[in-house]
């Protein structure tokens, strides 16, 4: 997104996480114009510091489904962010919250669908026989 010219701010509770953003880049994440804030997403101060008030889009993709679902709703209801996307690993919860109007992305469901399509021969990978 940053390379695409958007302004991107990342919030993570682990200060070391910026190493992942810098990895494989010639310049550091912050040198490229990206923002990085250390804090947990349930802390309103951390969200404010990361600039949630002027965000056009919000992505909740921590490693906890429930955390993501809660912070996504905070972004939606408290900060009225236009586009909120949530990562939810559990297909059942992802489906129900999608029905409630949250844009949920379920990697598990996506993988199931791709695997099934591959098994049925509906998708092929280039250069792979079969």
């Amino acid at each position: 997104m940053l390379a695409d010219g958007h302004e991107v701010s990342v919030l993570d509770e682990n200060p070391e996480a910026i190493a992942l953003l810098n990895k494989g880049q010639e310049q550091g994440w912050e040198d490229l114009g990206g923002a990085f804030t250390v804090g947990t997403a349930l802390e309103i101060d951390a969200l404010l510091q990361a600039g949630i008030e002027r965000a056009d889009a919000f992505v909740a993709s921590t490693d906890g489904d429930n955390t993501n679902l809660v912070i996504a709703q905070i972004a939606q209801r408290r900060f009225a962010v236009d586009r909120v996307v949530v990562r939810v690993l559990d297909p059942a919860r992802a489906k129900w919250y999608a029905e409630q109007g949250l844009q949920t992305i379920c990697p598990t469901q996506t993988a199931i669908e791709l695997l099934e399509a591959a098994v049925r021969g509906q998708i092929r990978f280039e250069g792979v026989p079969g």
Partner: protein
Amino acid sequence: MYALIVGAGKVGWNLARELIDKGNEVTLVEEDRRRYETVEEELEHATQYGDGTELWVLERAGIERADLVVAVTGDDEDNILICQMATEKYGVERVVARCNNPRNLQHFELLGIKPAVSATDLILRLIEHEVPKYGLVHLLDLKEERLEIIEMEVGHGSPADGSRVSDLGMPDGALVISILRDGGGFVPVGESVVRGGDEVLVVLDIGLEEAVTQRFIGRAEVA
């Protein structure tokens, strides 16, 4: 009554035991295997193993016919989600949530989870009540009505000291309803004079607290 309790920590376990003793049907859900086994030895079939934020676990525990869902895990996000799904997906009439970190109370409120009970907050309220130095005591919070009743001591030398009630310049939405003095109390009229050392009870709209308290707190205390 059928009560579904998620989280078999100290709170959940003791609560389950009490509710069972009072003749209620209870299911206690716990996701930690070892904790589950410990609790299951005592509560037997009233205990179920599983992650109480997963729909199938809640459904297996009979959430659809629960009269009450109590979410008392150590994780606030989990408690919020459990109560939200109980109310909005399964139509459970009554929920009670535990709020571990009082800073998260605002999130419970935002998502309509009530009541949310915070032990830290409760103890803090008690301390405020017991330690007069704190000055201000919340007697009652009416969240729905957005009103609260507070009690505070009138500071010597504060703007209110020696002032008539009608001259206090209270903001709209705040009213002095009692003055407590020398072991007695009375409902003041506009002419009543407030003195330093009095305790006053004020009913006010939530949000006016600061505007109200600064009239009663002594100048020295502000600094």
